[in-house]
């Protein structure tokens, strides 16, 4: 046991912090998913809240929306930032690299409310940029109320945030690509591999740990993110953009049903945990 003492000692601050400030409230949330809780009295009601989650008439629809959001979130969080990071590494000038990587990170500074206003004003049917652009191009028949038609609302939300270059993903890839072992890459180039081959045969496998991390982070973020739905469509029109986290938010804040909200949260937790474990197994490395 003694030979592990150092390891345990070094991680003990992290573990202590998490136990006190995270696990206590977390277990409280898990516990309350089995209760009817009005914050004064607690009634144990077993699995009734979960029964309600699964008997919700639109839960299936809501999960299918979530699936679309999560899959597209994964693509958005990986592909565009990776391309940009690779392209910047192709450049030579130190100054250009510095300016570009600062530029792509700068966006992290902008608070979410700005993006919301921007996309509401792009999609607005009466004065929105998108419809005006289509009219300008002579495509008037394509104009529509993007966020208010059940055929387009979901995809309008997916496309908000274009061109999807998230600062965090970009930084992670940029750092990783910079630290790839150049000797291997150089020698393969001498062997006649072109840029594309280097990218697919060498970079992509070597970036597996980064993919893994980003997949986990994106799944966690995507399943909990109800803000974009609230600000852009409020779940509408009708049921067109409802997702489980949105229902959870409504249960917790609009109707004070914290027990029911916790049950939805617990289901989300189980799904995220399952996907994370799958991700770890599937993209297996030495852990």
């Amino acid at each position, binding site marked *: 046991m003694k030979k592990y003492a150092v390891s345990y000692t070094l991680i003990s601050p992290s573990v202590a912090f998490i136990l006190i400030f995270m696990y206590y409230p977390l277990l409280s949330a898990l516990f309350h998913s089995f209760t009817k809780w*009005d*914050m*004064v009295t607690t009634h144990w009601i077993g699995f009734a809240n979960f029964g*309600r989650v699964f008997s*919700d*008439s*639109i839960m299936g629809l809501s999960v299918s929306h979530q699936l679309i959001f999560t899959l597209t979130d994964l693509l958005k969080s990986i592909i565009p930032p990776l391309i940009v990071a690779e392209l910047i590494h192709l450049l030579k000038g130190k100054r250009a690299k510095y300016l570009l990587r600062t530029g792509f990170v700068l966006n992290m500074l902008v608070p979410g409310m700005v993006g919301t206003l921007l996309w*509401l004003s792009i999609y*607005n*049917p*009466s*004065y929105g940029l998108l419809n005006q652009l289509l009219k300008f191009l002579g495509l008037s028949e394509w104009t529509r*109320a*993007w*966020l*208010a038609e059940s055929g387009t*609302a979901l995809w309008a939300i997916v496309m908000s945030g274009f061109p999807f270059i998230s600062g965090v993903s970009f930084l992670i890839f940029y750092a990783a690509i910079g630290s790839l072992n150049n000797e291997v890459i150089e020698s393969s180039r001498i062997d006649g591999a072109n840029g594309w081959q280097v990218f697919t045969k060498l970079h992509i496998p070597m970036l597996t740990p980064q993919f893994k991390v980003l997949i986990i982070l994106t799944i966690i973020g995507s399943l909990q993110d109800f803000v974009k739905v609230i*600000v*852009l*469509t*409020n*779940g*509408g*029109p*009708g*049921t*067109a953009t*409802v997702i489980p986290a949105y229902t959870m938010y*409504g249960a917790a*804040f*609009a109707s*004070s049903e914290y027990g029911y909200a916790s049950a939805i949260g617990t289901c989300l937790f189980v799904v995220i945990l399952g996907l994370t474990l799958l991700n770890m197994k599937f993209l297996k490395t030495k852990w």
Partner: protein
Amino acid sequence: MKRKIGIFVIAAILAISMVGCNKATKDSVPSSSSSVAPATNAAETSKPAEKKETKTVVLATISGYYSTALKEAAEAYTKLHPETKVKIDIIKDNAAYKTNFDAKMAAGGDNAPDIVHTNLVVQPDPTEYINKGWLLKLNDFVNEPNPYNDGKTVFEGIDPAYHQNSYDNNGNVANVPFDLVGTGFYYNKDIFDKLGLEAPQTWEDLLADSQKLKDAGYIPLAMPYQSSESWMHTAFIDWSAQSVYPELLILPGDARYDEKVDSKNTSIKYSADNPMFDFGAVYDPEKVLNVIKDKKYDNQGPAEKKWWTTLKDLSQFYEPGYATMDDNSVYSLFISQKAAMFWSGSWQVGTLLVDQQKLKDKSFKWGTFKFPKFAAEDPLFPGSPRGILVPGHTLGITAKKDQEQVERTKDFMKYLYSKDVAQKIFERTLEVGEFVQGPSLVLGVELPAAVNDYLTGFKVAGNMSYALTNISEGVSDDKPASDANRLDFYQGKLTVEKFLENKAKFAQKLADKQIAENKYDLDPKTNP
């Protein structure tokens, strides 16, 4: 080496921010200038007898709601009573407001605000929070003399027509109303004049005018569909189903009957000619549920068919994309003259007045008109629509353990509900261009003539009642599904019969849920 520089930078920024903090703290001594005149005679009557411990009373409010004027009133009060500091906490939105209160009460309540807008923390009614012991029962408070208001009791200073709205389901006083809020139509007089239109009086006119506006290239009606269309539903329900109300009253012999609260019920008789017939009515929740369980009010009658079809016709003139449009964008359509009419609340009057001044050469003449009637008399819709005017902001007191704290809070409440202070709050709010929700309920407060003129669109005949709204409009877990049902109907994908049939199912489901949760036996003679 580089690491050291990094640490140095962080240390330097930390040091700077700490120095900055101290400096700023010194700078920010609260300014003592105040525009709210203290109620001087009250000050003399309630002089602090001995030196008391300093306490802080917190009133939590929401962005923009009377906030400037309330802050000034708080400063004026502290001048009068140096031992009580009053702070006005401003919170971003309704969700944060409710979470802030709930979380602080769940943690013991010591940090919770002392005065809250009960309309923001508890919907649809305050019974739940009174039962939890989170809000104080104000039964005695409203009958205490108010030293700031010539010694009248608190309730004597409030418009008696609205006292009943302060009671919870069990007959406890849960809040004191401050103002009224109404909804009506705003219209752009310039556009109407240009097209030779008059403010419509009937639904038929409204639809015909809308068509003309549409033909002229305007958005006929800017409708805050997500937040405010439901006010119309409530007005229609009240108009078409009010003859049922007498069956819902708590009467002698019922388990809930309380002589003090419910005595007015015994003299209530329905009459189509008297829009005030149900003045002071208190309804029994089990009787209300009975009406829907035995399908006496089934949500699918000829009246429902007619008014929902009318609304469907009207929806063809809403702004494009209304189904998900946010309120801010809806307002921008009206103020930028893209939309000729605007369905909204009386809270918009103050804002519009200020914005019109700022618009200068782009300003336009505007007016308001009431919720219309039908052109031909229809027995399904007796008398006139009673329109929409109900207490808006209602203040409640948090039930805290510290008795002295509660006493100080009550005293500040009385101060707010005095004629002079309330008058000043309304005036200052208009001066700085913030929301005045609507007419004051504090007796003696006068609004400027210009504001009163615009509020005529909200003046109503009688008091619209919510007696049946909950069981007609309410949904339990099915809000998105019920929204989709309505949209499908508006877009012609469902017949009115099918739409109402679906709607009735949601209402029945909610009724079942309420019966189960409250363990009702649906017999008003017994208490659950």
